């Protein structure tokens, strides 16, 4: 097992990783920017090292600095968390070259799944259904029209290198193609440094369902059930739950098998997530992409399985076998996560500022993952996630009631948060009955 792990991240996920390391008896070094020098993860770590100024490019994305920090602190492994360098195959390569264990999949798997068009090809070859659309990046407007008509309108243009909902555009008819193609290409180029885009069928009543997988170095793989992440705003997830409500047994087991097939296709090692769109009307599902890292919403899976996914990641990275088979994975009850972001709950504009009071929720069935303390100045340089509130109940109805009471008792003063949004969704009939398909912002759509 590792002696010391460098945590190349910040906020709640840095704290999350640190907690498991401490339970495993592994020393921690938190690499941080100047803006996070007084943060809770830095305070709680065994060691900390400043790797650059506030700007993420110069600190959390600064490969040379992160690697040097790991070397000078005698760390033997690096945990990248999510975001920042977590899905950067070059970083994983460099870790390997420097004798550091990257806690995540092999760079090859990251690279293969990182190219969204290529990932579709891999999935299809593995027998996993993909959304109808172009296999390869669209060269020009003509190819775009052809692909769109092949899939059938409405379609979506997406950046090949995209993610997190950026560089996406819904196109409802042929007339819209030229402008949408040009705009999407430009956006992709600006946002991701590659203007390659592809086209896929847009499913109106779609649910966003993803399957958690774990693989070890011996080629053993299990799934840990699925998560529904349909409640989003601007394609950013806000509420996640496990198991996904209103799926037929056939669809559910089909999703699990498909996820394992996709993971097997890239010899996937570590924790990963295979994302699908599920057509709420037909129950058909389509592979979208695979995320080759731990997800923000992993705690809902931890709640229903009783497994610590960060511990599993670390164990696997250290070469240990999974140690349990699919049959031993028991999914128990229902879990929901709400992301408390520093955002206006109406406009979703960032609300960086000074948190003057923070009373987290507590009690039976409630977990809080947060780096908040009071007072705390939310730095404007990073993402807006302040806290994850996770509840576990015997069934979905109990979990919803528990989440409501947990959010009602939560106090964050000094800035605006997404809590009022969550309370609206939790009181919405379509959500409570599990009839929702996709929820964007404050608009709830019954599916």
């Amino acid at each position, binding site marked *: 097992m590792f002696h010391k792990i460098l945590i190349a991240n910040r906020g709640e996920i840095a704290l999350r990783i640190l907690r498991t390391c401490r339970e495993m008896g592994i020393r921690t*070094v938190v690499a941080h920017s*100047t*803006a*996070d*020098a*007084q*943060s809770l993860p830095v305070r709680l770590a065994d*060691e*900390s*090292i*400043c*790797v*650059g*100024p*506030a700007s993420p490019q110069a*600190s959390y994305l600064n490969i*040379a*600095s992160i*690697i*040097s*920090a790991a*070397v*000078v*602190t*005698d760390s033997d492994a690096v945990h990248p968390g999510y975001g920042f360098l977590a899905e950067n195959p070059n970083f994983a390569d460099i870790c390997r070259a*420097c004798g550091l264990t990257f806690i995540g999949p092999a760079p090859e798997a990251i690279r293969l799944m990182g190219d969204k068009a290529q990932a579709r090809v891999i999935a299809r070859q593995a027998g996993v259904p993909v959304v109808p659309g172009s296999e390869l990046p669209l060269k020009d407007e003509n190819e775009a029209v052809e692909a769109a008509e092949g899939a059938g309108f409405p379609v979506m243009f997406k950046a090949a290198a995209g993610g997190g909902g950026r560089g996406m555009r819904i196109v409802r008819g042929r007339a819209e193609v030229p402008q949408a193609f040009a705009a999407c290409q430009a956006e992709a180029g600006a946002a991701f440094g590659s203007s390659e885009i592809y086209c896929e069928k847009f499913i109106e009543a779609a649910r966003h369902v993803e399957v958690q997988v774990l693989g070890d170095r011996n080629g053993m793989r299990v799934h840990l059930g699925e998560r529904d992440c349909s409640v989003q705003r601007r394609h950013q997830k806000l509420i996640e739950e496990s198991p996904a409500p209103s799926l037929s047994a056939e669809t559910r087991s089909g999703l699990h098998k498909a996820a394992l097939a996709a993971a097997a296709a890239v010899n996937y090692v570590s924790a990963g997530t295979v994302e699908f769109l599920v057509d709420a009307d037909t129950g058909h599902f389509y592979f979208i992409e695979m995320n080759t890292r731990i997800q923000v919403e992993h705690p809902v899976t931890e709640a229903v399985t009783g497994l610590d996914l960060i511990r599993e990641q670390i164990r696997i990275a250290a070469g240990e076998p999974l140690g349990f088979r699919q049959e031993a994975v028991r999914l128990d009850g229902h879990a929901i996560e709400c992301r408390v972001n520093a955002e206006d709950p109406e406009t979703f504009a960032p609300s960086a500022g*000074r948190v003057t009071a923070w009373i987290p929720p507590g009690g039976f069935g409630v977990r809080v993952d947060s780096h908040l303390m009071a007072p705390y*100045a939310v*730095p404007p340089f990073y993402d807006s996630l302040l806290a994850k509130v996770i509840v576990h109940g015997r069934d979905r109805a109990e979990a919803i009631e528990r989440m409501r009471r947990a959010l009602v008792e939560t106090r964050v003063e000094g800035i605006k948060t997404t809590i009022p949004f969550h309370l609206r969704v939790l009181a919405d009939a379509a959500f409570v009955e599990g009839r929702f398909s996709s929820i964007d912002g404050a608009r709830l759509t019954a599916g």
Partner: protein
Amino acid sequence: MAAPRRPSPAPDGPGADERVVELARRVGGVLAELGLSEIEVEAAGLRVRVLRTPPAPAPAAAGAASASAELEAVPRPVVSDAATPGLVTMEAPMVGTFYRASAPAAAPYVNEGDVVKEGQILCIIEAMKLMNEIESRVAGRVVKILVENAQPVEYGQPLFLIEPQG
């Protein structure tokens, strides 16, 4: 390994009172000098607030401007210039290992008491097998070398105190 953890900023440590009184005196002097009516300053979060009410009472006749700059950041653990007035702190521009000489057997680039020119090499920081030569940004006398040879340094860590000259 001793991680390069610096002593916490200790804004409430024993020296804080001296510091804040001195700060008040100096800021007050600035206020009088410029004929302002209000200065708000916050050292930890780099907060500055400058005000002059429209009917300027002071003889200075410059245009009445109200500038308000606010940048909230978390205090950094830095040997502050304020604590050592007149000295310049050379900080590590990167993470790595600090070396005082170009090779184990070589003489150190500088010793305490040496006078250095602007741009003169003070030390090397090794990062990812690269030897980065760190140059002085001022001409002056090296008052203090703050890090031992071959020790790890973090970004922004104070390395040298230099008294500017010429």
